[in-house]
């Protein structure tokens, strides 16, 4: 990035130099994605070397498949929000408030599908409210969603009187197996949902106008407006996406353990943010990829297992996640300054 390729120079070069310049151009435009793939492979190798018994056994990968989606599915739309220059810290509370809607609907109707729809609807509505506060009233999203995070967490505690709910009965529904069962009795369905969420997110971000506008707004909001992009609608949409994904992840996490804790989601704040930033998304907006976040979330998932397997205490995980966030965010600041 420091040496912008001089285009007029290319024509005077021999074909081989020409090829080298194109390679350099490919590297510079796909640098972050290649970087995250490199980190992914390198860390994996390190983990296998340091804790071969853990990282060479298939069980650990099955565990990753079922637990990483709880925050990975949220990290995907959160990536879009951050690319658009926004932030959403309320998703842990949205996971829980969505499950409140699930629990009440299930209690009154006995239907898991209805309860599922109710939680998704609640998640989108809460996301929309976030969007309205940010876009309509004009509050910076970081502050607005810290506020809504506390508000909805409080609402969950008030509505449930601080107590959890068992979801054992829900196991009889076909939807239970579709959401958190095992495919062929082996592959956790959570992983398939994660793959599907990744695919959908990729299509939204890379193959729709909404996605194109997300990049533009995060890069240069004024330019987007001058060119007729409806920036308000786009920003509202990203908050709704985060909301619906959070509610969905909340259902997956709760059904997996067949219990809904009112503190649901509180543990995922750090992992989710770390996944997004480790995946190469810039906190300044305009830059980020879905593939990066997908790999980022699995690295984050593996780090927790690795810390324990290597013999450190679990206390180290928070420290390391925090460090990852600081380092990956700073890296972008440095890169950006060098670009001028």
């Amino acid at each position, binding site marked *: *990035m420091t040496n*912008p*390729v001089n*285009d*007029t120079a*290319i*024509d005077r070069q021999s074909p081989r130099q*020409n090829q080298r310049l*194109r390679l350099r*151009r490919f590297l510079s*435009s796909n640098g972050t994605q290649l970087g995250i793939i490199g980190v992914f492979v390198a860390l994996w190798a390190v983990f296998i070397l340091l804790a071969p018994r853990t990282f060479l056994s298939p069980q650990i990968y099955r565990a990753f498949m079922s637990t990483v989606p709880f925050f990975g599915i949220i990290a995907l739309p959160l990536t879009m929000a951050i690319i658009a220059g926004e932030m959403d810290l309320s998703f842990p509370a949205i996971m829980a408030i969505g499950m409140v809607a699930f629990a009440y609907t299930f209690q009154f109707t006995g239907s898991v599908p209805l309860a599922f729809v109710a939680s998704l609807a609640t998640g989108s509505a809460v996301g929309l409210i976030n969007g309205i506060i940010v876009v309509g009233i004009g509050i910076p999203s970081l502050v607005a969603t810290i506020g809504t995070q506390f508000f909805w967490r409080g609402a969950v505690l008030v509505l449930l009187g601080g107590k959890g709910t068992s979801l054992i009965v829900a196991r009889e529904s076909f939807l239970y197996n579709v959401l958190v069962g095992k495919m062929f009795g082996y592959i956790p369905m959570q992983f398939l949902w994660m793959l599907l969420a990744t695919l959908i997110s990729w*299509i939204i971000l*890379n*193959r*729709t*106008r909404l*996605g*194109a*506008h997300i*990049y*533009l707004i995060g*890069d*240069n909001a*004024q*330019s*987007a*407006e*001058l*060119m*007729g*992009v409806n920036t308000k609608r786009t920003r509202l949409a990203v908050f709704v996406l985060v909301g619906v994904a959070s509610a969905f992840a909340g259902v997956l996490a709760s059904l997996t353990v067949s219990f809904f804790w009112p503190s649901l989601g509180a543990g995922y704040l750090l992992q989710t943010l770390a996944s997004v930033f480790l995946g190469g998304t810039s906190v300044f907006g*305009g*830059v980020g990829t879905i593939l990066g976040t997908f790999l980022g979330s699995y690295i984050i998932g593996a780090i927790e297992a690795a810390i324990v397997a290597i013999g450190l205490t679990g206390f180290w995980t928070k420290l390391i996640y925090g460090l990852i966030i600081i380092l990956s965010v700073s890296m972008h600041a440095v890169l950006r300054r060098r*670009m*001028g």
Partner: protein
Amino acid sequence: MENNYRLEIKNISKTFGEVQSLRNVSFQLGQNEVVGLLGDNGAGKSTLIKIITGYHQPDEGEIYFNGQKVEKLSVPKARQLGVETVYQERALAELQALWRNIFLGRELQNRFGLLDVKRMKEETHNLMVKSMGFTSTAVDPDSKIGTFSGGEKQGVAIVRALYFDAEIIILDEPTMGLSLQETRKLINFVKSIKQAGKAAIFIDHNIFHVYSVADRVVVLDRGRVAGEFRTSDITLNDLMDKMYKIAETGHFD
């Protein structure tokens, strides 16, 4: 021939808070005319342009395109009517690839409603080679705009206007930050708009540039039209004298 204007603006006023940016401004643009817009900072040039492009809505006044009155002009509507703006380089998304900037706000879609990325990249490549004279190995639609020179960025903004078949091209301080050679290219481009039978509004601080391409010059001062001159009727020196007087006294004499 009142109805033969490509664009006519009647008695436009616009106030921001306590600042009256435009006062009763009327402005016409002929079918095949290049009009230079001159004026000091804060004279209201940008506001007038942003009203024509639909970015701001006037408090009062009327806008006509080809004799047809247009209500509630918005950016997409203005673009439909053939208004394209070459903004200063700040209107590009620097971290994004070239092709995204060309199709900014008007991305091509396939029949499924998804972005047709392949076609946008191909069109970008063709445009840069054919319209801007880049050699084909030098153009990579995936290059980030941030790595381009000032002139190349301006080229991108111009190509964007050309691709969408603009009827009225607005150039907002297009020579800012350009090298001498790049400026000459730009002036030639404005002349080519005239030859193609289109119309243009050219805004610049540099009176030499405006004088050399414009058919007519409109001078704004403190939110009102202070005067207008055909460049064929006035010498550059006289125009400059008048500009100085306007800036000092608000009058031409």
